């Protein structure tokens, strides 16, 4: 197997279309104009010695090792900073160059420890390689002179020496090993865009410094790992490599965190994971990563993972470990009993956005084929279901229109209700890179996020609207575009229904949609709305990126429609650099929607009422599918409380923590007779479960994830499932117990069934994925290699459809009892309900959820930074600590929902999107008051959770 080797070309690729031919050491090579001599040499297969160059960052020319001689030119130019010219004749190895290089290396090594045998980078050190490459045999200067290597010198302190910084939980910084190539500093700037690192001092005193000589953990560093990757020595080194040693083989797989879907090399030693390294050829991430994907995989081997199936009669009983056979047969017996007693529709299930497409497909299949109803839903219900509805109605597909590469051609980025820097960090880095190159940015968000202003990034317009007024603001932008004649008439006439646009004009041109009117409701100055609209309409290629701040509202679907309208009327659809891009939350939320996880749709977004579609499955599965739509998650809970819904199979989803109005969710779960939870851990929902089926991690199975750009990426097994089975195998066992004729030997066979039955996946197969690396659906006869950009030349539904978007104020209103508006969000180091990230060292950055409150509101309530506060809505109350900041506007408070101790969803209400029942997480009227500590509710909850996690014969499980 061996390691997946990647060639380092030394400098980034040139995208010029003009080709240049030159000669390197007698070999002729043709490369794009703008390529460096170093890269051209590497293309010809000749590796010029180098230290400060690597192809993830621009050339710098500081190490003086990559010098070459060029015929007709004086001196010895650095090959990394010298662009190729036609007919150039390059020599990379001459006696003059050999002498210079050896001299340079001699100086480097004179100030470097010689502990190679015990060094963590042994075997993976470029300094070592270069010493070998130049034939360094002796260091004439000795090691006793001025140096950065030894703590003591001449019997006293060596003030040039700096101690190792081990403050970051995942990597160490050892200044003694630093050669000041500045690759880390440049990676932090150019790739990540955080600018946390710098070179301080000058000459011999130059040092890499995090922030202002701070420890890494205290600096602005976001622990993305780009610097560690860039470092040619052991100066910045993964702690896992220090502990374990160098990996011996690696497997390319896909990250199981956010919807960016980064490709990683899982670098292994046997079945032990040594480290995750972003894969350069990964088309979503292009070799970059964030703290979660790069480092936060420790949950996979966490001691709290449950590895044996368990059952119990009542949720007040302790768990009893049983065999897989017993757990499976008990589950099926219970489900059949419930259906016999209460009716066919009394059970259902939830597919997981964290599981693979194949696993999700099987869960909806067992429900439709085995349960014989359509009571299947997925967590997209609570995040992007309005995207499905809105984009489906207007464009004809329920997905983003672009690939991530498209951002490199964007001139104006409009971010609405999303904070990619926290929730989609690798995409944020790619966007920031484009912004630093001159693209403009508009942010619509109640909060001043990191995207609004961060080093070398500043939004041209920040529309800090009042939560719940998205539709008004987006419609006001449309008003400006229409009334100022900034729309693209040619595009609309060609691609959309002109009469529908006329109707839309009539609607939107009305003065009630003017920015001056909307200012009164949204709090955004009219001029800012006008400026943003003009920039979006006239600034060149304009792309919209949006998140849950759009969807999780009573009018979530309406805002999505409004966004689709904006892109259509300005012609920003159907080519590179533009489009409408929902930033999907979880790794496979796109895939779980594609795979027919919604109660009204079969795979590929085909409504269940369609006879022709049902026929495909009826004949393949040998059953008559129910033609009625099933229950959505909130409806399931309502039906449970009403007594008509009694059993549920939940794969990889923690609805008790992630869904709104916790009290209502727990009441629904408590009313059921058989709750089956399949997960890695005893999550919050499992407190109400009767059967627990242990799940497997993404490292333990084969499959595919589909990211936010519709890209189907392979997930590859690198270790044996600790629980014994991949999740798809568990579902298959349940199906077999139900008497269904399932016999999949490998997930590729499940994908073959998906391809056979779903037109947009017709050409998807594991063979094709192996060949192409990844593919974006639709992938079929019309697009055998997939579809990076959709709606080219016309919309999927035919003509693009303009739909009126009337603003309706949410019924969740502030008043004397609840005068503030709570909105919720994410933080970089944590993921979703935190079940995974809380079980990693990521807690170093975010040990608890905090309530952000404006100084003005804090002052009124006598709150100081760090005080315990009670947060109360009409649904419930909780306590947490306050953080006073003007990132939020007066009247608005903000928190995250990563920690079950806080349970932010105790506060959120049962209001939801009109079209999809997506909960209104983003607007809750609340009151905030000083508090002494956790509420009774929190204490009761913790007691109940502790009680319910007892396992017979085991010590109490600790959270």
């Amino acid at each position, binding site marked *: 197997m061996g390691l997946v080797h990647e060639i380092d070309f030394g400098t980034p690729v040139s995208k010029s279309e003009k080709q240049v031919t030159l000669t390197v050491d007698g070999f002729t090579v043709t490369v794009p104009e703008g390529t460096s001599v170093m890269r051209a040499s590497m293309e010809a297969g000749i590796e010029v010695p180098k230290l400060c160059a690597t192809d993830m960052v621009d050339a710098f020319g500081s190490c003086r090792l990559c010098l070459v001689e060029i015929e007709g030119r004086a001196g010895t130019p650095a090959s990394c900073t010298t662009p190729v010219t036609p007919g150039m004749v390059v020599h990379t190895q001459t006696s003059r160059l050999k002498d210079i290089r050896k001299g340079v290396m001699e100086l480097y090594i004179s100030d470097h420890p010689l502990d190679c045998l015990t060094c963590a980078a042994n075997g993976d050190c470029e300094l070592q390689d270069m010493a070998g490459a130049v034939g360094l045999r002796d260091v004439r200067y000795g090691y006793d002179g001025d140096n950065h290597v030894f703590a003591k010198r001449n019997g006293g302190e060596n003030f040039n020496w700096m101690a190792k910084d081990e403050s970051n939980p995942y990597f160490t910084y050892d200044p003694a090993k630093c050669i000041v190539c500045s690759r880390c500093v440049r990676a932090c700037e150019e790739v990540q865009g955080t600018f946390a690192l710098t070179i301080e001092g000058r000459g011999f005193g130059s040092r890499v410094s995090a922030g202002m000589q701070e420890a890494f953990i205290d600096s602005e560093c976001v622990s993305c790992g780009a610097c560690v990757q860039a470092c040619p020595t052991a100066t910045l080194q993964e702690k896992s490599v220090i502990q374990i040693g160098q990996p011996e083989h690696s497997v390319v797989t896909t990250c199981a965190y956010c919807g960016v879907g980064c490709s990683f090399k899982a670098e292994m030693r046997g079945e032990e994971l040594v480290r995750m390294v972003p894969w350069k050829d990964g088309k979503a991430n292009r070799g970059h990563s964030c703290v979660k994907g790069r480092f936060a995989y420790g949950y996979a081997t966490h001691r709290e993972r449950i590895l044996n199936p368990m059952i119990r009669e009542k949720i007040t009983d302790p768990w009893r470990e049983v065999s897989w056979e017993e757990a499976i047969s008990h589950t099926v017996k219970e489900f059949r009993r419930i259906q016999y007693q209460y009716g066919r529709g009394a059970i259902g299930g939830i597919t997981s956005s964290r599981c693979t497409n194949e696993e999700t497909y099987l869960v909806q299949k067992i429900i439709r084929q085995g349960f014989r109803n359509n009571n299947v839903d997925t967590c997209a219900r609570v995040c992007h279901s309005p995207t499905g509805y809105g984009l489906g109605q207007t464009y004809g597909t329920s997905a983003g229109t672009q690939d991530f590469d498209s951002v490199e051609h964007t001139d104006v980025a409009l971010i609405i209700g999303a904070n990619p820097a926290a929730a989609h960090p690798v995409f944020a880095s790619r966007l920031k890179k484009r912004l630093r190159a001159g693209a403009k940015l508009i942010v619509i968000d109640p909060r001043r996020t990191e995207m609004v202003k961060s080093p070398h990034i500043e939004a041209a317009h920040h529309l800090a609207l009042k939560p719940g007024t998205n539709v008004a603001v987006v419609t006001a932008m449309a008003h400006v575009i229409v009334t100022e004649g900034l729309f693209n008439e040619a595009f609309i006439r060609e691609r959309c229904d002109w009469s529908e646009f006329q109707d839309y004009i009539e609607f939107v041109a009305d003065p009630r949609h003017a920015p001056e009117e909307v200012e009164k409701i949204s709090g955004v100055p009219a001029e800012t709305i006008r400026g943003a609209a003009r920039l979006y309409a006239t600034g060149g290629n304009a792309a919209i990126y949006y998140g849950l701040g759009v969807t999780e509202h009573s009018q979530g679907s309406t805002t999505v429609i409004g966004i689709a309208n904006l892109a259509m009327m300005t012609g920003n659809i159907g080519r590179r650099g533009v489009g409408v891009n929902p930033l999907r939350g979880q790794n496979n939320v796109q895939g779980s929607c594609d795979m027919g996880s919604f109660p009204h749709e079969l795979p590929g977004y085909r*409504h269940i009422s369609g006879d022709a579609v049902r026929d495909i499955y009826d004949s393949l599965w040998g059953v008559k599918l129910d033609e009625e739509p099933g229950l959505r998650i909130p409806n399931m809970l309502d039906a449970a409380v009403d007594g008509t819904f009694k059993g549920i199979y939940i794969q990889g989803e923690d609805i008790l923590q992630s869904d709104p109005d916790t009290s209502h969710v727990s009441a629904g779960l408590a009313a059921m007779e058989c709750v089956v939870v399949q997960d890695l851990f005893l999550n919050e929902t499992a407190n109400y479960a009767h059967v627990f089926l242990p799940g497997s991690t993404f490292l333990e199975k084969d499959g595919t994830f589909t990211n936010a750009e519709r890209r189907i990426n392979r997930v590859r097994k690198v270790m044996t499932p600790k629980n014994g089975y991949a999740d798809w195998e568990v579902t298959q066992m349940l199906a077999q117990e139900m008497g269904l004729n399932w016999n999949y030997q490998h997930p590729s066979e499940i994908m073959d069934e998906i391809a056979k039955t779903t037109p947009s996946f017709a050409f998807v197969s594991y063979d094709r994925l192996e060949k192409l690396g990844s593919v974006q659906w639709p992938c079929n006869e019309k697009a055998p290699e997939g579809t990076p950009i959709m709606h080219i030349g016309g919309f999927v539904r035919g003509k693009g459809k303009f739909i009126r978007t009337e603003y309706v104020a949410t019924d969740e209103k502030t008043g004397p009892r609840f005068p503030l508006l709570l909105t919720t969000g994410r933080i970089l180091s944590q993921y979703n309900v935190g079940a995974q990230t809380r079980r990693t060292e990521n807690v170093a950055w975010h040990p608890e959820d905090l309530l952000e409150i404006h100084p003005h509101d804090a002052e009124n309530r006598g709150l100081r930074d760090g005080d315990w506060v009670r947060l109360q809505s009409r649904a419930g109350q909780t306590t947490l600590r306050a953080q006073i900041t003007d990132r939020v506007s007066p009247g608005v408070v903000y928190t995250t929902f990563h920690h079950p101790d806080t349970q932010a969803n105790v506060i959120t209400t049962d209001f939801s999107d009109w079209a999809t029942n997506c909960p209104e997480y983003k607007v809750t009227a609340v009151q905030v008051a000083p508090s002494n500590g956790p509420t009774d509710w929190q204490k009761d909850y913790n007691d109940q959770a502790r009680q319910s996690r007892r396992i017979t014969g085991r010590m109490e499980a600790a959270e």
Partner: protein
Amino acid sequence: MSHDDENRMSTKQKLVYMANQIATFFDSKPHDERVEGIAEHINKFWDPRMRRQFLEMLAAGGAGMKPTVIEAGAKIRPPKQDAA
């Protein structure tokens, strides 16, 4: 437990609320499309037991329902007996 029960809707209240929300979206459309749109949306996305409860409430006078919701009621598909 600070479960504020008097502020929480029952399933039936919720169904009326949801139907009215759907009607509100279609308010900006011409009358026929409005009624058609509401009915189509409910037929497409509501499971049989939700429609049954809704139709029962409608038969009992449709208290709290917007006029367009009541009008759309005639086009809402009654669930088959065995469905749930």
